[in-house]
């Protein structure tokens, strides 16, 4: 069978013009050769409006006038900020408890303070994001293991009721006994709070989030470590801030490494993270994270460098959450991201069941 004949039987196998000149390539095995004759016939770079449109010698799956298949999130800026404050607060509980066990009271106090700041900020952000904020308590009328948001609401609730006595006990000396008992629970809940938000977004139909489900939790945990460490480094005297500094540097390294791993896993879908607004934020985040981490590693024992490095690192972690958030919108808006991988799965299954020729 000649290539042209194979094209004839396949409606999706036609040549599509791309308006961006940079087309999502789907099904790399199809394409190249067979289209040459058609390109000659139909004219390469045909004029449509004022813009030169190159013919794309690769196949794209049909879409409905390039309109999205899945809906973009209706979540507002509160949500990426919540990812940031939740991570910062959650990891701060862990750091505070570990520091208190090790006898580093100054670091423990300041970390409990940060965890409590998270308790104040996080619920407010989540509630104001709701379409019906006055109905926030409906979150607590059920507990659903199939809903990461339900699980997360209870984690946030548990975080508030454990961190509050732990922080009060540590900072005010009251309630001392209850505070002590709450500390390990707060630390444990904090670990959940810093990672569940990754499950929240990977458990969606948005390809760039869903397909990153193995790497996103590690990325968010790294960001939480970097934020909690950086914030504590900024407000703790350098001679007591060693653990916070090391946690910040480890978190920064984790963010860079996990970002790379995630991109590699995502393949074509990684474009959502590397282009447009998400891409710009990602680049800024990488710069800030590397710079902040390096500053803390090199000169973090000096107070001024600790404050500057911590602030830079915090900004980097916030940008990373924003980049991840924006990538979800970009991915949802691109029907190729939804249809491409699904079409590939269908073709693979067909290939697996087709009788040998």
């Amino acid at each position, binding site marked *: 069978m000649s290539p042209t004949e194979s094209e004839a039987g396949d409606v999706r196998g036609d040549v599509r013009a791309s308006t961006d000149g940079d087309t999502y390539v789907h099904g790399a095995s199809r394409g190249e050769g067979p289209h040459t004759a058609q390109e000659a016939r139909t004219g390469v770079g045909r004029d449509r409006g004022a813009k030169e449109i190159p013919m794309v010698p690769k196949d794209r799956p049909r879409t409905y006038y390039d309109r999205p298949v899945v809906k973009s999130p209706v979540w507002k800026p509160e949500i990426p900020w919540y990812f940031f404050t939740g991570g910062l607060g959650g990891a701060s509980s862990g750091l505070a408890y570990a520091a208190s066990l090790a006898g580093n009271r100054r670091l423990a106090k300041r970390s409990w303070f940060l965890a409590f700041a998270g308790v104040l900020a996080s619920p407010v952000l989540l509630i104001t994001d709701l379409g019906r904020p006055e109905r926030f308590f409906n979150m607590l009328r059920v507990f659903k293991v199939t809903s990461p*948001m339900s699980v997360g609401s209870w984690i946030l609730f548990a975080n508030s009721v454990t961190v509050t006595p732990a922080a009060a006990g540590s900072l005010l000396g009251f309630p001392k006994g209850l505070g002590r008992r709450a500390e390990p629970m707060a630390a444990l809940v904090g670990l959940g709070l810093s990672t569940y938000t990754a499950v929240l977004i990977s458990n969606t139909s948005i390809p760039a989030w869903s397909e990153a489900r193995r790497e996103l939790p590690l990325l968010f945990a790294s960001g939480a470590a970097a934020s909690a460490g950086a914030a504590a480094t900024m407000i703790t005297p350098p001679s007591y801030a060693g653990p916070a500094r090391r946690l910040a540097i480890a978190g920064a390294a984790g963010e860079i490494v996990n970002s790379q791993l995630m991109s590699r896993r995502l393949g074509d879908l990684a474009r959502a993270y590397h282009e447009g607004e998400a891409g710009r934020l990602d680049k800024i985040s990488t710069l800030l994270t590397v710079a902040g981490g390096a500053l803390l590693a090199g000169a973090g024992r000096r107070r001024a460098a600790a404050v500057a490095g911590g602030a830079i690192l915090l900004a980097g972690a916030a940008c990373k959450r924003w980049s991840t958030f924006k990538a979800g919108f970009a991915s949802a808006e691109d029907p190729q991201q939804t249809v491409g991988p699904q079409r590939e799965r269908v073709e693979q299954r067909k290939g697996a069941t087709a009788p040998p020729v």
Partner: protein
Amino acid sequence: MSPATILETPAWPDSYDGEAKARVGFFTDTSVCIGCKACEVACKEWNQVPEDPHGYTGTSYDNSAQLGANRWRHVAFIEQRVEVDGVSSSAPDSWVQEAQRQQLVEEGVEPHEDEEGFRWLMSSDVCKHCTEAACLDVCPTGSLFRTEYGTVVVQEDICNGCGYCVVACPFGVLDQRKGDGRAWKCTLCYDRLQDDMEPACAQACPTDSIQFGELDELRERAEQRVEKLHDRGIGEARLYGHDTDDGVGGFGAFFLLLDEPETYRLPPDPVATTRHLGENWRAAGVAALALAGAVVASVLGGSR
């Protein structure tokens, strides 16, 4: 397996004890859809769905664009070039696009003749009322629930507008209504079902493209219809959402299509996101342990 057990959902019929009714749904046979959009109008009128003016899309004669909080039935118009003698045209898909390209928006372009390499497909899209409904599973308030008819409905007095169902749906059906804040979608006319009436869209459909009924009966009818079309030489006819082994356990509202699903803006292999839940939480567990390890290691290094 008998049809009844095939069509079981996680919450239906078991959670209703003896009160479960037969599972009902839609069979949308797009081969007879004429694109009149009466279903869209009937749905809006009966359910008092607010207007959502879009203006002109500029891509086709479909100017109502998509399903959403304010559109629970949507008729897609696929105005499309097809291959003639193995040659596919590189011209825009629709005549509306062609007119725009030639700046003939006022006059329009010559209507096509048959055999000119052009086709019209129409399809009335709707909530699929999935057997494994991701929207229902992820709803943190219990607002989304499985009815006694096996359908999926949002309880508007519970919904707090968290927006999770919007991104969980693999079909982009649900959306948040602006100014209202809650999520809305097709209820399969839950109120009409309780009075033994068929949904408004199905009643309004002049060609019986939208067929309402008990799901097991609809499924048989659909299989016969496909066979009939194949016998008539329409080999491209296929059922979509009929396979109970698909990623959502089969649809409660399924379709007969004349091309691949993506042509109609339907995902070719939808998967309920909750199928990955175990994998998701395991990854989070590993990440939480790694975070705990990093914290402990940082503290063990001393305070300086």
